[in-house]
Each structure stands twice: as C-alpha cells, then as structure tokens.
C-alpha cells in the first residue's frame, strides 16, 4: 500500500481539491470484472469518474478532495469487489508482470503435461470392449489422479472467476466455462468409483490446456499494451544530485527538485526534469529517442529547453531545473498515454455489452438443449450440453477490438505517433477532411523576418526591437523569428495577450500593440504583411515574417489526397504568407482566421457530414483541435494544444500522418473482420453443438482456435511494414 501512496504523490494530478490516480488491478478477466470495479468505486462519496480498461487492467479514478474519500478507501473498495490493486509504473509493476507471467506459464505447462499423460492412459479405453475390468479401472483412476490437479491448479482462474461473477450476481465469461468443466469432471469421478459409464477426463484436461493457452496470449497482449508508457515512466531516475549553496552536493529524490534548482547529470544518465544549461557554457548532447523516436543526438545550449527523459550522451552537465517532475514533458506524455489506456473505446464497449448478453443466452440455450435431448435421446444429452457450453466463445468477441487496438497503437508508436485517447484509432480511420494549420505545421516553426516597412517616425531596428520585446516569452513562432532582433534596453511591461488578435504592452512609457491589422494599426496606411506593430504618435510598422515549408509538406499533402481526403489550410496569418504556401501545395486555404473562425469552419464541415481531422501547433489551435472529430498536435507545440489533441506527432514527421491514417484504417478493418469472424463462428458452432454433432474435445479446440484467430489476425497489423 505504501508503494501506491508514494506513487500517488508522484503521479497524481493534484489540482487543488481535485485528485486523480491510476493503478493496475490484478485478476481482471473481462468486461464484467471492469463493470463491478466501476460500480464499487462509484458507490464511494465524492468520486467524480471511474474508468476501467479490461484489456490493460488499468483503473483511473477522479475524485474531489472533500475529505470523505481518500486513496485508501478507493483501494479498499476495489479489494472488496474481489480484486487486488497494484501500483503502476516503476519496478513494482514490472515485478507484478513477471509474477503474473510466471504463474500463467506454470498453469499452461502443468495443464499440457497433465493432459498428454492423461490422454496416453485414457486412449487405451477408446473403442475397446474386451479390456480387462481391473485394467480399465486402473486407467480411469490414473486419468482421475492426473486431471483432477490440472482442474484445480491450471483451471483455478476459471473456477475462481466464475465464483466471483456469481457472488456479484452477474454473468461473466468464466461462468459457462466453469459449469462445463465441473459438469464433465464430476460425473467422470462418480463413474470411476462406480466402475461403469463414460469418463471425460481427457476432454477436461484438453479443455483446460486450450483455455490456459488462450489466457496466456490474452495476458501477453495486455502486457505489451502497457510497455510504451511503462518505458517512459520507468526511465525517470528516482534520485538526483542537487547542488546547494557553497558548491556542496546532496542526493535528493527527483520529486523534491523545484524549478530553479541546479543539479548534476553524469554521462549516460537520464535528465529527470525539464531543464536548461542556463549560464553554463558548452553544448549538451542529448539522446531524445525515448521522447521523440529520433536517434540522432540533439544539441542544446544556453537557455534552450532540455526535456526530462532525454539521456545525456555528452560530457557531464550541470543543469537548472525548469519544472518539477510532475510538470515535465515526460510526465505530461505519460499522463496522456495513461488516459488513452484507461478509457475504453466505444466499439470495445459495445462488444463488451454484447458478450455479457451472449453468456446469458448460451446458458438458456444449454438448458433448452438438455430438455430437447432428454426427450429425443437421453444418452446423448450430456455430450451435447457439454459441447454447447464449451464451443461458444464470448472471449473472441471481447478480444476482437482490444487486440486490434493494441497492435495499432504499437504500430503508430513506431511511426512516432502517440495516441492519447482510446477512440482515436477508430475515428482516425473514418476521417475524410484534413484541416491543417500553417505556421509550425506545414512550415517550420521558426520563421525569418523577410520584410519590414515603417512609418517615417519609426526606425526599422527600433520597430523590430519593440516587436521582439513584446513577443518575449511567447510560444508563438513569430517570437522565434524576432528573437535575434531583441535589444537589452528595450523592455516591455504590463503585457496583455488578446487571443487571436495580438499582444500589447508598455515600452518607455508608451503603449505598443503587435498583432493583426485591426488590432495594432487602426486607420493606418501600411503595406500588406503578416504582422503589424502600432504605437503612439501614428508610429506604425508592418513586419513580414516568412517561414520555409517543412520538408515533406508537399509529399504529405499529395499522400493525404491519394487516401481520398480533402485538404484545407486554415491559418491566422495574412493572405500573403498563406497564399504562397497554398500555391506551393495546391491546396484550398483560408487566411487571417481567428480561432473562432477556425472552430466555425470545423463545425460547419462536420454539420455537412464531414469527418474532420485537425492538425495544429500553436496556442490558438487548442479549441480547434478539440472541436474536430480527431486531432493531432505536433510534439513540439505548446502544452495546451497537446492536451486537447487525440494524437501526438513526436518528432514533427509530417509525412507520418498519411501512414498513420493508413494504419488506423487497417486496424478498423481488422476489428471488423474480428467481430465478424467471432460472430460467424458462434452462430455456426452453437447449432451444430446443440444438435450433438460436435464432440466435447472438438468444441474445446474450436473455442480456443477462434480466440487465437482473433489475436493472430490483430498481430498481422503489428507485423505490417510501417
């Protein structure tokens, strides 16, 4: 419990009274389990939302800190529901993985050896009538001795799961399985002692073996889904060496680092938090592959931001922390990934509901089969009922989508596209219109000042210095272009930003405005440009900032068109700059759009039945990204845009977008195939089993193969060349 408490301190978003925690639950098998955990936690006071993902076994809880509910109560509620909460991230979780994996492997191994041995003895009884009675008894007893431990060791998860389902008054997937196992095993034991009648020990052994193999594969899929964010979270060092006044050093927990602290990063170590070199001279060489997938070392100097999670591959560094651990780039990315993994996508929720309904119908059908065969041929009733219970496979239904989604997110991660919302893959696959922002998306974020025209009273250098002072500290690409023109003696005070319009501030006692023409240069006669500066005494300037097109912008637009998508540019920049880009790319473009106009455009497109994919970068894009069906932020964009986006492009590889859409379409295709296959299999197999045409062992094989087919079909995606 203490591990979870400390983890909570580390990863929870504690925004005042609102609290949030994510943890893993052991023993989760299916959607039914997820629902009972949700119900148990939701019953607590002050809990705002609970999300449980049955595929990744993650639980995410939001609650208000009114004091009535704490983490301890939430964990206790989960335990009361019959599950064990396990802390997420770090060594604890990987230890749990190892434990779970080893236990599952032992069950599979034990079932496989036991099944083969039992089969060897029991085949001696097949079709022979002249066998010695004492010999026949010996074979049956041996089979019982071998299979009974297999049932209660390897089959334990199913029996326990079914018991838990029934104790919670619901129908899970384990219920028909456990009934079938006990229904085959009990009469076999009775018949062994009676010395007559059929025994089904070989079928029981084989069934458990196939089932445990299925469970093992399911577990591997779940573990793999966790690895991407696990790798990120685990990579942060727990302790750092902090420099204190007088040059002394001390070891402190990484969580104790505060902005402004100076700390040492030896060669080969991971930078714990976002930091800069500050006043230190020299160049830092950093491997950012963990964050961006880019393997070439990045160079950083002076005040440039070094992102937490990058590895120092150059000389030892002394860095100044910019943020606490919880606020660093890495922590934000981990939280976004975690959110994606705790939400269950809509298509999976529908499949879960169907599976639960399905189990109920199977039990009814089994009862009808019993009655039917009792009337026709009581001797065959038993085998037929067994086959009905065994052959149906709600597992394939529930596994169909999570397996495909896991494979798709693995493949997207390899392309450098991180998913931050569970629904993103499905929605990305359906888009038909792309709305692109220009600056920072199609063009390089850092522009250059191309042209400046000023009113007679204003010198060109002074205009640029004032503009640079106003933009100082802004995340807008314009600031980067102006930075080289900044002068130390020109400083702006009382700055105020008007979203989509510009920025204003006091310089040398006068008010200056920088932004759109209507905002900065009312009534002035200035040339068309990207940005305008206006000040006292009719001092005006128009500043043209151009940004080069990103490499691959043209190829990306062409590839998007080849996928059948409409491409539209919506930019807040002036006509001149936008039309250049639009012309170069041969794309329909809207210029000088305010954020509200961009949102209106997206809303209007959606009203016409279009499914809109918005790609953006700047602060102004946050609401636009949220308004679209699915959205993508460039990884270096501002934090607001990232948290609103469904996808993150981690190393600005624009040309990955068409590939990501292709991968998402393939994943949706596989999901449909899987659901169709699972449905078709069950519809075909159940009537055959009810008619007594399927032997119990064949039913066990069919059920396991149908699950396996679903998983392997999804694995195809991960194997596809990106």
């Amino acid at each position, binding site marked *: 419990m203490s591990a979870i408490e400390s983890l909570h301190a580390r990863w929870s978003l504690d925004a005042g009274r609102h609290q949030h925690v994510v943890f893993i639950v052991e023993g989760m098998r299916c959607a039914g389990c997820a629902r009972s955990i949700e119900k148990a936690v939701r019953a607590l006071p002050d809990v705002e939302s609970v999300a449980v993902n049955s595929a990744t076994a993650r639980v995410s809880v939001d609650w208000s800190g009114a004091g009535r509910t704490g983490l301890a109560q939430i964990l206790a509620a989960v335990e009361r529901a019959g599950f064990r909460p396990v802390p997420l991230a770090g060594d604890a979780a990987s230890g749990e993985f*190892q434990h779970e*994996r*080893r236990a599952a*492997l*032992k069950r599979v*191994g*034990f079932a496989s*050896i*036991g099944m083969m*041995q039992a089969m*060897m*003895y029991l085949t001696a009884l097949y079709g022979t009538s002249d066998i*010695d009675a*004492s*010999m026949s008894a*010996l074979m049956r007893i*041996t089979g019982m*001795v*071998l299979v009974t431990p297999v049932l209660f060791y390897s089959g334990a998860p199913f029996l326990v799961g079914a018991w838990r389902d029934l104790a919670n008054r619901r129908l899970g997937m384990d219920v028909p399985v456990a009934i079938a196992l006990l229904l085959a095993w009990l009469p076999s034991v009775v018949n062994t002692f009676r010395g007559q009648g059929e025994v089904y020990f070989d079928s029981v052994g084989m069934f458990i073996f196939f089932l445990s193999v299925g469970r093992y594969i399911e577990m591997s899929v779940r573990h793999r889904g966790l690895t991407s964010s696990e790798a990120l979270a685990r990579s942060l060092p727990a302790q750092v060496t902090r420099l204190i006044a007088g040059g002394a050093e001390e070891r402190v927990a990484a969580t104790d680092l505060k902005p402004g602290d100076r700390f040492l990063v030896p060669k080969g170590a991971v930078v714990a938090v976002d930091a800069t070199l500050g006043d230190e001279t020299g160049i830092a060489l950093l491997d950012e592959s963990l964050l961006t997938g880019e393997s070439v070392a990045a160079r950083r100097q002076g005040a440039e931001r070094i992102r937490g999670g990058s590895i120092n591959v150059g000389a030892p560094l002394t860095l100044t922390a910019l943020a606490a651990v919880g606020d660093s780039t890495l922590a934000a990315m981990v939280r976004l990934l975690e959110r994606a993994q705790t939400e269950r996508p809509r298509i999976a929720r529908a499949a879960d509901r169907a599976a639960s309904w399905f189990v109920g119908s199977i039990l009814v059908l089994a009862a009808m089969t019993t009655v039917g065969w009792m009337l026709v041929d009581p001797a065959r009733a038993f085998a037929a009922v067994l086959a009905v219970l065994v052959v149906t496979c709600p597992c394939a239904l529930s596994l169909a989508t999570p397996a495909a989604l896991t494979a798709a997110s693995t493949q997207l991660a390899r392309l450098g596209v991180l998913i931050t919302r569970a629904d993103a893959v499905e929605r990305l696959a359906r888009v038909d219109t792309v709305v692109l922002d220009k600056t920072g998306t199609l063009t390089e974020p850092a522009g250059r000042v191309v042209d400046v025209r000023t009113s007679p009273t204003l010198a060109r250098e002074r205009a640029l210095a004032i503009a640079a002072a106003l933009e100082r500290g802004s995340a807008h690409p314009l600031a980067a272009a102006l930075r080289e023109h900044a002068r130390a003696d020109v400083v702006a005070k009382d700055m105020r930003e008007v979203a989509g319009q510009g920025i204003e501030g006091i310089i040398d006692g006068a008010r200056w405005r920088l932004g759109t023409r209507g905002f900065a240069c009312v009534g002035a006669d200035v040339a068309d440009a990207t940005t305008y500066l206006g000040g006292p005494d009719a001092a005006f300037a128009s500043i043209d900032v151009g940004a080069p097109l990103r490499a691959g912008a043209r190829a990306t637009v062409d590839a998007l068109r080849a996928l059948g998508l409409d491409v539209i540019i919506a930019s807040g920049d002036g006509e001149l700059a936008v039309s250049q880009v639009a012309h170069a790319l041969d794309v329909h473009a809207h210029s000088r759009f305010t954020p509200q106009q961009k949102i209106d455009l997206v809303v209007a497109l959606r009203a016409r039945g279009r499914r809109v994919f918005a790609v953006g970068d700047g602060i102004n894009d946050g609401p636009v990204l949220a308004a679209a069906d699915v959205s993508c932020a460039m990884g270096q964009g501002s934090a607001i845009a990232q948290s609103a986006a469904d996808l993150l492009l981690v190393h600005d590889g624009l040309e990955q977008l068409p590939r990501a859409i292709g991968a998402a379409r393939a994943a949706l295709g596989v999901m449909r195939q899987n659901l169709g296959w699972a449905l078709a299999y069950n519809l075909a197999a159940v009537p055959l089993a009810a008619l007594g045409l399927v032997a119990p062992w064949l039913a066990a094989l069919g059920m396991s193969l149908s699950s396996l087919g679903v998983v392997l079909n999804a694995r195809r995606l991960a194997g596809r060349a990106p």
Partner: protein
Amino acid sequence: MSIAYLLVALGLGVFALAVWALFWAIDDGQYDDLEKHGESILEDDPPGP
C-alpha cells in the same frame, strides 16, 4: 499384469519429475526473456583484466 501397475507408477513418477523441472525452470527466470540470451552471444565481451 502386475507389470502394468509398476509402469503406471513409473509414468506418474516421470510426470511429477517433468512438472518439477518445468516449475524450477520458470521460477529460475529461464522463460522471462526468450530473446535476450540468444542475442547476448552477439555482444562484445567486457574488456578483460
């Protein structure tokens, strides 16, 4: 026919032995990472003394 009883007992003994060996191997971590050890042969030896 008493040889059959002996053989069955022997078979169960082999079964127990196989299960014990498997469980020992799993607990020993031999199945934890199936790729790592195979690839380790390609890595350079640490520099000798």
